[in-house]
């Protein structure tokens, strides 16, 4: 099937460029690999019929967030070469994490509980990320609490950045 070929194509593209983000010495090239990876994820969303999510992914992450990353990278002028090689502890930890991930995926596919739950949904189910209405309804009913919590987390992070980056003169208690 053609959608299977497309899935493999975009899956390889996404994971390959995600690897390139980590392994690239040049920070700008890393950011651009992240961009390709995000576009690949958006393409995977399209294959799942979640067109709205795909458009949002490209608009917010690929269009704005990576552009901000590039802006910061260029502003700090971190050209290639000054990235330190990985420490031994990092390598051990990442190997362990990879083993855990593979193990988790293996048990997930071996037990096959995912397959039954998908086939149980016999009738045409509208994907949540497909249309505006389906997406909005889920966001404001089923996932209301997670959305609020994530929003709150972002707010805290933003306040933290402001506190960290701003110099408060004569305000000892804020420090």
């Amino acid at each position, binding site marked *: 099937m053609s959608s299977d070929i497309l899935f493999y194509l975009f899956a390889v593209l996404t994971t390959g460029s995600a690897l390139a983000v980590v392994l690239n010495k040049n920070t*700008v090239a890393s950011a651009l690999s992240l961009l390709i990876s995000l576009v690949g994820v958006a393409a995977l969303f399209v294959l799942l019929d979640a067109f709205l999510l795909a458009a949002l992914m*490209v*608009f917010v992450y*690929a*269009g704005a967030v990576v*552009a901000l990353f590039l802006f910061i990278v260029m502003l700090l002028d971190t050209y290639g070469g000054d990235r330190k090689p990985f420490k031994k502890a990092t390598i051990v930890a990442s190997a362990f994490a990879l083993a855990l991930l593979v193990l988790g995926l293996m048990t997930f596919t071996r037990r096959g509980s995912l397959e039954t739950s998908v086939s149980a949904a016999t009738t045409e189910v509208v994907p949540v990320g497909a249309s505006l209405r389906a997406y909005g309804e889920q966001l404001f009913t089923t996932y209301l609490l997670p959305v609020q919590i994530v929003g709150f987390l972002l707010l805290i992070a933003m306040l933290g950045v402001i506190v960290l980056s701003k110099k408060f003169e004569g305000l000892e208690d804020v420090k």
Partner: protein
Amino acid sequence: MDFSFYFDLPLWIRLTLQGLAVILVLFPIAAACSMAERKISAWIQGRPGPNRTIPPLLAWVPGIWILQKLGVFQLAADGGKFVFKEDPVPGGVNKFYFIAAPILAMIPALSTVTVVPFGAYLDSAGKLVPIVLANVDIGLLAVFAVSSLGVYAVILAGWASNSKYPFLGGVRASAQLISYELSMTLSVLPVFLWINAPGGQGTLSLFDVVQFQSQPGFWGGAWFVFTMPLSAFIFLVALFAETNRQPFDMPESESDLVGGFHTEYGAFKWSLFFVAEYCHMIVGSAVFILLFFGGWNPLPWVTLTDSVNALAGVLPFAAHPLFMGALGIAIFLGKILFSIFFFMWVRWTLPRFRYDQVMNIGWKKLLPLSIANLIAYTLGIALLHK
């Protein structure tokens, strides 16, 4: 005339033909815009502008001097020059990204047009069908998403040039485009709040926006520019900033950055940046017209369907779907060309902002204004639907 043979063709052939047709219209218009820019700037500044170029043999044709004076042949001369000129790649640039940047500029510029409808016709069942490459439900979001990728071409060009002025231009572009994207998105929300009445499936389709402005009655036929003037104004200002047009052409600003992001570029690569900029302008003004100026409807309160029906009373061939489609596209294209003229008019009238002024306008004026606009219209629409 019978066109059923066209609809018997396989789908992929039809799609390819349609895509090619759109690009074959868009690309020359974008190229001709650069010529129009020179001529209009000349008129605004009281100069004659390009008025000498003519191919040798054509000069014998009587009456052709009018085209010569209008600078029509200059376009071909310019285009030929860009193709045949030596294309230098300066030493010290990051070659891969330096060459990739102009290509990256063209891809979003040409692909956003796929979801922009540019006309409509009545089929045999009397149903209005949009003329568009892909009539998707998330039309506007798709335009915003793909056109937001255009900034990478500018950033990459600035960074890969390995030179100070292009670098500054690239950094400016990344900050400016993000700043104005927010106000732009917020300014169109009232339009979609208004057309998505409770109970509907929810749509971001640009065709539905035009349909909403083609309803009978005083309020149904009013273009959104009359009912939401502030939204239209914010969108227009943000559009100027998003397309890097004066007074917002910070990434380029030749008086303080030499040429900005394209200082190190020449010949064909340079011209690709410019065609991409004009493509962005064309698609941007197309979206602006669809949202606020009634799309292919000739006048406010006069829809395309009504005017074709009125014409069909006088001219029998006007009832043909082909005529209606062509008329719709012609009206829409006319509006776009006027909008492009407006872009140029502003460019040669207003001076460029300083960079801190651009940031101040974006974050301290336009963004609060668009949020206030959104809240006001949300409350108003909620009260109206009560």
